[in-house]
């Protein structure tokens, strides 16, 4: 009787592509602060990595984020830099928020269906005119 070895079975490609990035989060697909983070939530490191205590055991990706966010950057930019999906990146950022090593600033609230603040629009217009 032929013995089929399960490990030799080809992985379903779709399943593989979704599951593999989550090995970085140790299989976690949800996080404490992940739901509060958006594509353009700005993340900033609160202290240089070498000055931080309690950061042992962090993944290299966590350290990348701490280094990258010494200047404020958006969640989407961090994800692009890590070459990881946004959902996975949010979990890693959430870990650092819990540790108190980064802070997050939510995007300006722009209520759908309502016109945004006129001073905000003027500032955006002035910025575009300088391009």
């Amino acid at each position, binding site marked *: 009787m032929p013995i089929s070895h399960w490990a030799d079975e080809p992985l379903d490609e779709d399943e593989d*592509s*979704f599951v593999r990035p989550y090995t970085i989060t140790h299989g976690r697909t949800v996080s404490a602060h992940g739901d509060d983070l*958006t*594509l*353009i*939530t*700005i*993340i*900033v*490191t*609160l*202290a*240089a990595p070498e000055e931080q205590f309690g950061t042992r055991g962090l993944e290299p990706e966590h350290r990348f984020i701490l280094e990258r*966010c*010494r*200047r*404020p950057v*958006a969640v*989407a*930019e961090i*994800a*692009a830099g890590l070459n990881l*999906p*946004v*959902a996975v990146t949010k979990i890693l950022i959430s870990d650092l928020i819990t540790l108190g090593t980064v*802070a*997050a*600033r*939510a*995007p*300006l*609230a*722009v209520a*759908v*269906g309502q*016109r*945004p*603040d*006129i*001073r*905000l*629009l*003027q*500032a*955006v*217009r*002035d*910025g*575009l*005119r300088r*391009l």
Partner: protein
Amino acid sequence: MDYDDSDRRNGPAGPAPAAVKFLIAGGFGVGKTTMVAAVSEVEPLRTEEYLTVASVGVDDVAGVAEKDTTTVAMDFGRITVSPELVVYLFGTPGQERFWFMWDDLVLGALGAVVIADTRRLQTSFGSIDFFESRGIPFVVGVNSFDGYQDRTVAEIREALDLDPRVPILMGDLRQRAVSRDVLLTLVDHLMDGRE
């Protein structure tokens, strides 16, 4: 400007700027990334998002829709207006049917640009329907490479069944000045009657 400081925490890196975004939508290959690249201060970046969407077929007994996960890719760029304000430009992925399940797409969005190609205007319908239904203001940019244009603004407005107040611009979106003017027209559209 209404900079809410309540969620701002000052660290050694200084205060984080506020962020808003514009969405750049339109059919595949219509020039979304071209426009992002034309005005962004950085080379367009690419990132992926997982979306969980209800799949076809609903289990009526349990009252729970089957869920599928799909991957969408986005190209985006950045314009730093000031140390206090950054504008992001997101090229929206196709498959507009997913957008309704994707709150993060519209969070912080001031408005949108729908890029249209006169040879296949139907590829813009999905984006226009979405922004109209969500009440997100938008303008239409007709990408005409090298200035060639075979249809008039009136013809395009009729073909797209657009509200007469929605601005339509034509031009070569590869040029920074053209893409910038499309965004300025969008901001003016947002300001209409407000100054």
